[in-house]
């Protein structure tokens, strides 16, 4: 304790530590029946940090080439001590992080936390969600197993359906006309350099915006609190909220560890580009709702290809989603209710399609 005080004084003398951390002492978090949803962003952040740590560990042994990738992952899982655990945590952590990010997005949507002045916080968050999906897509290929190889073939082929730039985009992603070792090298570069850099930058912006605007109170509660001011409650961010958040992280880590240890992530068989695709090729669960939709579309819709229509529709939906805060009027307005309805529809559609894909597969 004395050492800590000494260090603090030293920093304070030089950098004005007390001034720099003043915002932490002033920061408060609203306290109400929906407060539990405030933890999801932090949990996503925590899982991202876990991914960075375990990913760095995997880099010590992983070899990004089509001739060595599979065997190096196999080596990590069978020869390196606790390698199976590190890899399993990385795979499970990726899935939990994407789940947490989606849950965070929907909670912000339903609590209408994106309203003025927080529009850009939402936009930065949505871009982060897209980056997280890109992490998932690129990381899926890296073990170079059969399932990932064919899923990447299909995934990059769907990208080719994008109007005008589709073919170019496909070649750019694949590093050629086909999915080969060149694709693996590219995806590796995206996964460990490009995406982490972009994500870190956007994450800083996102967190600065969250800090700048404080934490949103849902409109329904705002109205209640305005009518009855003594009902208004809040807690200090430091240490009260932070300690609760840390506990949530601890629980998340516990769940992650249990899943990784009790259901170790499988590796499958090594990809053979000249073998026929086995049955049951599918993307990761978070892409399933799109994949299943494209499968259900007829081959031709009017004069267009069915898949192309689907891809364009999902693209437009993503743009609408990105601009949601600008479309939402005031909290009580009709448009706001429409958007809540749209949110429920999207959630039901995604959940329903994912479930359908699982039942059919």
């Amino acid at each position, binding site marked *: 304790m004395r050492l800590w005080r000494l260090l603090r004084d030293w920093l304070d003398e030089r950098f004005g530590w007390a001034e720099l951390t003043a915002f932490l002492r002033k920061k408060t978090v609203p306290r109400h029946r929906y407060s539990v949803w405030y933890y999801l962003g932090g949990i996503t952040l925590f899982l991202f940090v876990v991914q960075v740590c375990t990913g760095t*560990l995997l880099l*010590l042994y992983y070899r990004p080439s089509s001739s060595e990738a599979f065997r190096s992952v196999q080596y990590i899982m069978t020869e*390196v*001590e*606790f390698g199976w655990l*590190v890899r399993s945590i990385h795979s499970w952590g990726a899935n939990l992080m994407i789940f947490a990010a989606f849950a965070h997005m929907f909670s912000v949507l339903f609590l209408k936390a994106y309203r003025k002045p927080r529009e850009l916080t939402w936009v930065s968050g949505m871009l982060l969600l897209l980056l997280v999906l890109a992490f998932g897509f690129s990381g899926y290929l890296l073990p170079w197993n059969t399932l990932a190889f064919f899923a990447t073939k299909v995934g990059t082929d769907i990208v080719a359906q994008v109007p005008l730039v589709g073919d170019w985009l496909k070649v750019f992603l694949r590093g050629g006309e086909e999915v080969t070792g060149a694709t693996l090298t590219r995806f590796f570069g995206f996964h460990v350099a490009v995406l982490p850099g972009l994500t870190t930058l956007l994450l800083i912006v996102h967190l600065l915006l969250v800090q700048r605007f404080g934490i949103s109170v849902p409109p329904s509660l705002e109205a209640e609190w305005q009518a009855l001011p003594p009902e208004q409650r809040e807690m200090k961010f430091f240490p009260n909220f932070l300690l609760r958040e840390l506990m949530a992280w601890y629980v998340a880590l516990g769940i992650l560890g249990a899943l990784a240890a009790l259901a170790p992530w499988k590796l499958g068989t090594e990809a053979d580009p000249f073998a026929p695709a086995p049955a049951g090729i599918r993307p990761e669960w978070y892409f399933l709702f799109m994949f299943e939709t494209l499968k259900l579309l007829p081959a031709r819709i009017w004069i267009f290809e069915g898949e192309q229509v689907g891809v364009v529709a999902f693209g437009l939906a993503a743009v609408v989603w990105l601009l949601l805060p600008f479309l939402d009027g005031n909290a009580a307005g009709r448009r706001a209710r429409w958007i809540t309805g749209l949110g429920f529809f999207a959630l039901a559609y995604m959940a329903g399609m994912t479930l359908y894909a699982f039942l059919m597969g």
Partner: protein
Amino acid sequence: MAKTASMPPQGNETRQGRRRFVEWLLGGSLLASLASFFYPVLRYLIPPERADLGSDTVVAAKVGELKPNSGKIFRFGNRPGLLIRTADGEYRAMSATCTHLDCTVQYRSDLHQVWCACHNGFYDLNGRNIAGPPPRPLDSYRVQVRGEEIVVTRHREV
């Protein structure tokens, strides 16, 4: 946290004792869980020992491959070895890893010596360090000519 108000009145000392006990319990659990995170990571960082697949014997060259007064680097497991044919036509074999800072040495036919280019170290044809920074001689190997093959064997330390 205003828990003290709801607690039954009791001696200050007992309360202090309990508080210290809880602090130890919390701190101890925290340390134990931290240890359980870092122990696997530390074990993971150490690469597993790979069996040196090259056995103790290797075919370094074919007879007639080397002219007198020349040398050749050959693979001995994961490390390089140096096979020399002296001006008299005799074969010598030694480790090619310089004992100074791990560079790979070469045979200098102009000097009839083994030379390390990194820091100008010299060894004689028996692998003895004779000039420059190398602190120890190179490990020497046994050479046998078996038919057409020149076989190099590592001396097993007993």
